[in-house]
């Protein structure tokens, strides 16, 4: 026998989507998807509705609120985006994207009908089932409302499952408000909308100040039953987390019922590139949704 090594071709290994630890083919697999609608929200942010093209893949593409996808424009780049739409619609995601870098600036120039690549969904989600029968606080600062739009849609579709639901949303100015066209519907679904802006303009009639002021108003004067039976979902700029979570903690909202969604740089979404590590925890695998107890145990998380 000739002492020659045989080449092992891993590409011939069949896909094993049931056992992710054995499946090599999913790593670089992208769902081909089409931008079916482009809806500008502000000068900077646009909602893209993106549909997986293959009917079979579309049927299987499901996600939970809080998860993210990697969106790829061939030759331009790939980046993680929170899914901002209802989890009951399969094979389709809405991503609200701010012009910030190469990829997002390029995206702002493409029209509907363009084909993009989608990998995922990745990461952990908000435990919406667990929240059944409870009050919910959805606390968002700035672009932080984007990932919360998915649990909001879930709440709307299952409104009877939850008690009191509050959205507390703070932005820099009235011009920065996202999803304004939906506020009426949210209110009609008995979701209390508390909006506060840092800098007002002449047309603005709502509250002015920091998001913690809005939150304080809602939390003050409740009984312990309210605090213990309340779930909080928090998403916003890094500086906001600390103040909001401290306040919730002071009112004894249980740490296991406080969820934050962290933002980090990511180049893979699959626990390999290490760019998203907080301390040494992969945001893409163990997050982006963490409960507050976990966050307290992570270094440099918030």
């Amino acid at each position, binding site marked *: 026998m*000739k002492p020659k090594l045989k080449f092992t071709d891993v590409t011939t290994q069949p896909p094993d989507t049931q056992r992710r630890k054995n499946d090599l083919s999913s790593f670089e697999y992208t769902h081909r998807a089409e931008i079916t609608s482009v809806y500008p929200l502000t000068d900077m942010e646009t909602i893209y509705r993106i549909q997986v093209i293959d009917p079979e893949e579309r049927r299987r593409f499901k996600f939970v609120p809080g998860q993210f996808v990697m969106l790829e424009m061939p*030759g331009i780049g790939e980046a993680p985006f929170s899914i901002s739409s209802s989890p009951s619609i399969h094979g389709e995601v809405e991503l609200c994207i701010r012009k910030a870098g190469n990829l997002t600036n390029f995206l702002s120039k493409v029209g509907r009908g363009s*084909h993009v690549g989608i990998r995922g969904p990745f990461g952990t989600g908000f435990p919406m089932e667990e929240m059944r029968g409870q009050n919910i606080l959805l606390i968002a600062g700035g672009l932080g409302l984007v990932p919360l739009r998915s649990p909001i849609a879930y709440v709307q579709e299952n409104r009877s499952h939850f008690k009191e639901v509050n959205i507390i949303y703070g932005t820099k100015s009235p011009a920065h408000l996202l999803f304004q066209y939906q506020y009426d519907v949210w209110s009609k679904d008995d979701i209390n909308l508390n909006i506060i802006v840092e800098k007002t303009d002449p047309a603005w009639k709502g509250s002015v100040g920091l998001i913690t002021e809005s939150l304080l108003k809602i939390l003050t004067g409740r009984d312990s039953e309210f605090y213990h039976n309340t779930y909080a979902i928090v998403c916003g700029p890094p500086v906001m987390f600390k103040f909001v979570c401290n306040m919730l903690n002071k009112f004894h909202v249980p740490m296991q019922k406080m969820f934050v969604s962290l933002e980090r740089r990511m180049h893979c979404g699959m*626990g390999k*590139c290490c760019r998203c*590590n907080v301390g040494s925890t992969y945001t893409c695998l163990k997050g982006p949704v963490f409960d507050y107890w976990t966050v307290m145990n992570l270094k440099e998380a918030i």
Partner: protein
Amino acid sequence: MIFRIFEKKELRSLFEILAAHNKIVGPVEIGRDKDKNPVYAFAEVSDFNSIKLNYTTTKLPAKRYFLPFQEDLSTFRIEAGNWQKTIDYNAKEPLIFFGLHACDINALNKLDKVLLHSVYPTPYYAAKRKNMFIIGIDCVPQSFCFCRSMGSDTALHGFDMFITDLGAKYFVEILTDTAYNFLKNIKTEEPKEKDHVLYMKTAAERNKKFTAQVETTDLAKILDMEFQADVWKQWGDKCLACGTCSNVCPTCYCYGVEETVNIDLKGARKTKSLYSCNLIDFAEVAGGHNFRPERHTRLKYRYYHKHRGFVEAFEESLCVGCGRCGQSCLAGINVPEVIASVRGGKIK
């Protein structure tokens, strides 16, 4: 485990038989440093005379053969606004590694844990890793080697055969049937009791040669406790944030991905490049916020990942104690001194 013993001259025959049919990578001398000491590197070899089996730690690990510094993850054909994606795992043929030290074999075992045996295994790594035939070889500990502290001074698995120099003969551990069959091509014998005694004596003598060490007791906990310690700032002030430590590390696997459009505008590529957590933009997000803007936070993160995070996930450190990072660091930062200082020692 099966053990055999063979005359030293037989190794040349084994090499030549294997080289006739396979591509071989091994340690070669590529020059001399300023003190006239030989500089070693892993390279493709076809002549047994150019392979240096008594080599000391190579400047660069063998990483480029399984985690190349740069590789295309996919390529695209772009036509009339539409695109087609082609994926290539960039593995074409099997490779024989002739003479890897225990630390470098253990480095592969550690990489396997995250790149092969975790969720989303990496096919680019798997394709190369599954086509590696590894012949390990014993080494002489250098002044900067602290592999014994990290439990990487011997390799228990991750190789096909491992050779130990017993003076007149080679002692070989055989782990795979492929290796067993290869060895049928040369003259080997069953080791006798006196060979076992000689093996143990050789190993004991080698152990005496370790000088550098790292105290790993409770290290994961201590790194958490001392997260705000001033020593990190002091090391950060020395650090040049050049990323050399990651470049020479046999276990650093983090990377960045970039896409480019071909000059003819008809194609594009998605390229992965190994990165370093010490580089300034490692944790910078869109909009400009940087989660680790200061050098000491990045340097600390690197230690934190290697000696705490990986321990938490896999119950072992992501450092094999090869000492390459300390040897290559332009600012003289090395693992034993950093860890000692975090544990309360002084910085020299």
